[in-house]
């Protein structure tokens, strides 16, 4: 019943549903009128695997363009990242790809990335990104891909579980803990990038 703690960050353009996904995951609720996040919201939530528990310390970031430059404050030191896009918005898909690229370049080298195509509940006529395309991109980059809906809850919990499964096991983490703190101090400043 050991609990492993991991910092997880949500990234993606504005209005793709990052906060809705977190609210669905943490409180099992959905608000049609979720306000844009101005800042970075922090919540914790655990997921149960077969023989252990993974506790996520979740940072839900602001997707609006003007706050983009602040994102590294949150993905720095994160063990996992969910990059979200809106399946009915091609721009947000392109945005997600650039988030993935940025994470790979500047994030933790072992960061577990999941690409989430959200709003899967919308009718097919509104879909702008095909499953095959996003899945192929994810495979190419060796990251997870899931289509989710914060609105009807589909695949939301699964998204977090899939990430939890890919995170280092207790022993591997123990070794890491000898040199790292579990949740990097939020004020920590690094001199390099």
């Amino acid at each position, binding site marked *: 019943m050991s609990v492993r703690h991991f910092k997880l960050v949500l990234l993606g353009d504005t209005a793709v549903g990052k906060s809705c996904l977190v609210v669905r995951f943490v409180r099992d609720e959905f608000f049609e009128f979720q306000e844009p996040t*101005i800042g970075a919201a922090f919540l914790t939530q655990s997921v149960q695997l077969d023989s252990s528990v993974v506790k996520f310390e979740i940072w839900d970031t602001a997707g609006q363009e003007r706050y983009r430059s602040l994102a*590294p404050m949150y993905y720095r030191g994160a063990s996992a990242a969910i990059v979200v896009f809106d399946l009915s918005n091609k721009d947000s898909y392109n945005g997600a790809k650039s988030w993935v690229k940025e994470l790979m370049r500047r994030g933790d080298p072992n960061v577990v990335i999941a690409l989430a195509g959200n709003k899967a509940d919308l009718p097919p006529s509104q879909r702008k990104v095909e499953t095959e395309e996003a899945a192929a991109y994810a495979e190419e980059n060796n990251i997870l891909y899931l289509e989710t809906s914060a609105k009807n809850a589909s695949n939301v919990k699964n998204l977090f579980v899939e990430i939890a499964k890919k995170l280092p096991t207790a022993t591997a983490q123990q070794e890491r803990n000898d040199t790292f703190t579990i949740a990097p101090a939020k*004020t920590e400043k690094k001199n390099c*990038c």
Partner: protein
Amino acid sequence: MASMLATTSPDMEPEDGRVVNQEAITKIREAWIFKQLSQRQSEFTNFSSINLLCCTWNVNAKKLDFDTPNLMSSWLFPPANGDVLPDIVAVGFQEIVDLNAVNVAVDSKAKQRSELWQEQIHKTLNTKTSYTLVSEVHLVGMLLCVYVKNTHIAKVSNVHSATVGVGVMGVMGNKGGVSVRMQFYDSSVCFVCSHFAAHRENVAGRNADFASILNKTSFEIGKEAVQEAVRAGSVSQWASGSSAVGLKDHDFVFWLGDLNYRIDETLSTDEVFVKSNNMEIETLRAHDQLNIERFNNNVFEGFEEGVLKFAPTYKYQPNTDLYECRPDKKLRAPAWCDRVLWHSQNPAHVQQKNYLRSELNISDHKPVMATFNTQVKNIIAAKRQEVYAEVMRTLDKFENQSLPKVDLNKIDVNFGELYYENKASESILVTNSGKVVAHFRLVPKLEDEGLCKDWISVSPTFGMLIPGESMTINFSINLDNKTAQQLNQGRESLDDIIILRLENGRDHYLTVSGTYARSCFGMSLRDLVVIGEPVRDLPLEPKARAEFEKKHPPASLSVPKELWRIVDAINEKGLHEKDLFLTPGFAAEVKQIRECLDTSSDFGLFHVHSMCEALVSFLSSLSEPLVPSSLFPTLEIDQQNIMPWSRRFLEVLPPIHYNCFVYIISFLREVLLFSNSNGLTAQKLARVCSNCMIQSDGGGKNDRSRSMALIFLHFLTTNSI
């Protein structure tokens, strides 16, 4: 004694003086989760009723006459226990061999005897139904054999045994305890067979033997099995991370053996003999050392024992049913040396059915048997998962609710239109809307050093709020000349994001913004001479500015229209005003003049001193000074070299600057024509020039700027322009 919460990482002591140990917090938290799960055990556990038989016998190195039928059977299956066949049988012996020096040191005899007893027990048990030996462990004279009915054998796992010697020198095996533990279905069961220190007066020795066996017995069952036990709700002391369990980390512990407690000395040896023979059990019980010590919590804390209803089991004359009192033997008052006790995480889950002795008489002790009915756990994994998830959700919910929370009455501080040298302030009200004390502070962005841009000042930058409490954060801005220059050049914009961080909580972004109303102040002469339109109309943002410039072809003024307008206005007012340029103007008028310059509107009414001040401050505000310091003379100026230096100066002055310089000097020479009424001198005006045409880097006037002043004076006094 208190057991300490063990952590591998040391406490951290951050500067605020609090001590934090994340590992300890995690452990305590997991202990809580464990407790929640155990409290809800029934929701995910089916219990089955399991019968146990525990036997103990100090055989005094004797063997039964195994050829006589039914002797073993009468011990293991006494008629009093009825037809119920136990599911688990634990048989413990003491003194299977003599406790002499050889046997203590060499195992061969004990091993041989152990095998003999095993064989006999196995045979006897299997006359009823099939049993399998799960584990055998012996140490010198102590032997413990645990059998399980074959029908359950698949449900037995993680079987481990341990031995602890507490005899000679505190470690030898003449006294001590041997134990076997196993997981049976989802319960953990442990049996201990022990032999404590002898002699009537040595109560303390026996208590100490118990304590050291309890402390020293440890089963290295592996991390996985420990986790399993924790998940099954079997480990009382939370032991995550450890790979070993102790005796009490089991659902059930059955402790049997020759514990050697006697009848206390308040009853004389004779009395004990009499009462034992007369079966005055109740009186004897009251004087039983183990009962007394347990009552005083000196030993077997948390253990239970059935009520003794049989006669003391020691010390018999072998092969008789008589207490040993032959004159040639040491006289021992009869006693209940041989006992069975138990410990259960959930007391309701063990019920003793019988507590008996057998009358087999080969030894100086009688065997003792106890039968139990226990409730053994059978966990429904899927249901446990559900309960566990629920517990975690509750915990997450509380943890999320106990995160600090503040409300901000606004997150945008918009100052609207801002002017040159504008000062303004605004505030945000921060209210603690959460349930816990909130500590907030403003933090720099990423690699930034400061909290915000230079033109903003914020206070306070940190604070603490108790729930419901509010605090105002003030933002003031000051658009000084330096900021204006940067704004004019499109290198700065009037917006910034300030991060308000709640310790252990979220970040809020506060936006500070405004729109700068461009002014000719703080611009460069180069820029000014190409603008025919009011400077206000020229967009600040580089892209928009480029657009604008595309639509409005550049003017090519010889001097900025603003400079021309000021000089013209002063001229119009007349140059005979006393102390022109030396008397300060009116601030409001200067401001109004600046606004009129920026918007190309009429000046209206003003005092000439205000206009003169506008001229001086306009020139001093230029982003590149009229006379760049690089052009200052490099040598000391004297009467000999002043002419060539002055000429050279004019030659190197950039064309626009040259125009303006000549324009201003000519105007000032004009002013000097009225020195009779305005009282000005060339020296005074040279000082004015120094004040507004050059910007001395590093404050104090250096030699080179003094030389420059001489050149100004030269131009003002000669007709060199």
